[in-house]
């Protein structure tokens, strides 16, 4: 009995390693819709005037929070694929990465339009003088080439190896993003600390794999 159910689980795991295209398409649609939930909630709360006394601050915080979350989720794909053998996970990675950019773009637009209202002098001063913006701004700029090259045509054009090198920018981007959050918090660092620890785990797993392949 026990052996039978163990075998059943094993078959399921085996099934999870390969997904047929129909299942994968449905999965992609689901992930796409789920990734839009934070934005939908934000839009509903904005429409129903439920963003509190300082809505601009709240929109900035929420879009920034989801940028970091999607960056970390994107970085989870490879370790998870290696640990589970679910190779199809990589086929969700591009969409997750693009959602990280999408929320980053919303975050930056909120700053540019709602917070500063195109006050360029003040923005330049922020970039030069405010350490968390000095870090945050280039992080956003670095995301742009990654987003632009996230399609098959450009991967072919650039060539796989160079594309990989370009996209390893995701590591400084993620680190910079967490630092950006850490430096703006007044006192309670619980949230940025959580992001930092999760990122550290994700990077550590990569380091372990890298060391093992080097020595192997």
């Amino acid at each position: 009995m026990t052996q039978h159910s163990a075998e059943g689980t094993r078959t399921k795991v085996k099934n999870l390693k390969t997904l047929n295209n129909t299942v994968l398409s449905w999965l992609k649609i689901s992930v796409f819709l789920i990734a839009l939930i934070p934005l939908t909630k934000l839009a509903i709360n904005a429409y129903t005037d439920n963003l509190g006394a300082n809505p601009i601050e709240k929109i900035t915080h929420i879009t920034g929070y989801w940028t970091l979350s999607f960056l970390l989720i994107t970085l989870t794909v490879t370790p998870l694929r290696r640990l589970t053998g679910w190779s199809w996970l990589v086929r969700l990675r591009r969409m997750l990465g693009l959602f990280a950019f999408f929320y980053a773009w919303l975050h930056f637009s909120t700053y540019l339009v709602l917070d500063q209202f195109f006050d360029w002098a003040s923005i330049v001063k922020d970039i030069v003088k405010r350490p968390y913006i000095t870090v945050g701004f280039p992080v956003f700029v670095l995301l742009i080439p990654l987003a632009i090259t996230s399609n098959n045509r450009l991967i072919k054009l650039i060539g796989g190896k160079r594309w990989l090198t370009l996209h390893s920018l995701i590591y400084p981007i993620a680190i910079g993003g967490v630092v950006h959050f850490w430096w703006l918090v007044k006192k309670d660092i619980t949230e940025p600390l959580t992001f930092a620890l999760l990122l550290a785990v994700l990077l550590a797993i990569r380091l372990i794999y890298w060391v093992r392949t080097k020595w192997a």
Partner: protein
Amino acid sequence: MTVYKLPPIQPSEITPRDLFHDRRRFMQLAAGASLTALLPQNSFAGEPLAGVTKSTDRLIDELTPLKDITSYNNFYEFGTGKEDPAKNAGSLKTRPWTITVEGEVNKPKVFDIEELLKLAPLEERIYRLRCVEAWSMVIPWVGYSLAALLKQVEPTSKAKFVEFISLHDPEQMQGQKSPTLNWPYKEGLRIDEAMHPLTLLAVGLYGEVLPNQNGAPIRIVVPWKYGFKSAKSIVKIRLVEKMPVSSWVEANPNEYGFYSNVNPDVDHARWSQAKERRIGEFLKRPTLPFNGYGEQVASLYTGMDLTKDF
């Protein structure tokens, strides 16, 4: 066209306040322990304060709505989120409450809250509040000048500074279960700042008893300084000879100074103080030196380098 008029209510039909509250207390008792635990105990927020002299200040600034004043607070004793105090401050018991006034005074005394409410005539004071985080509000406080209280205890010539100490009780203030700041919250003023008529001992806002999340039952309001200088829910006032160390200075001396006067020319270590977002407004407005109270208070600081004594 006939206009419907509300039937006049006979004075005899209106339940006297005391009776009304007796009735409420009775109902609360009857509702049993489980239900009463859910009710905000000993909190009288929202009750009108009697005998308040209305403000005659004609401030061009529009008042911030009560809802915003009571739902967007920095009161780390109840959590670090802006909405945490409104959510968590129900557990604060504002009765019984006393303030101990001690130190360099001839007549140290423990004041009961009921006594404090009657110590001087209650006035409405419409003040701008500028938070160090670059947002601001306009709040109609109710209270009287702190000087009225300090005069009663007769500060000695050694009383150079005044220290305010807030309640420390993690059972009532759940935010104090985490070491966000070194509890209890401590703030301080120079004696001349504390004695300045603008410095307010506040017990209410919008004509009503101070809501818990705004520092009930009694707090300080210093309108020309960043908000954190205005200590909330205070239990002790100490007159001292040496400059006291306030909680934020203790937490980060590079970013917060003892004086913390609102100053658009002296930036916070990590952000600009040149502009502020008035809650309810879209575009930021320029921040005024001393939060617009320069005419009244700038003379307190003549000869001082405010970029050094920030």
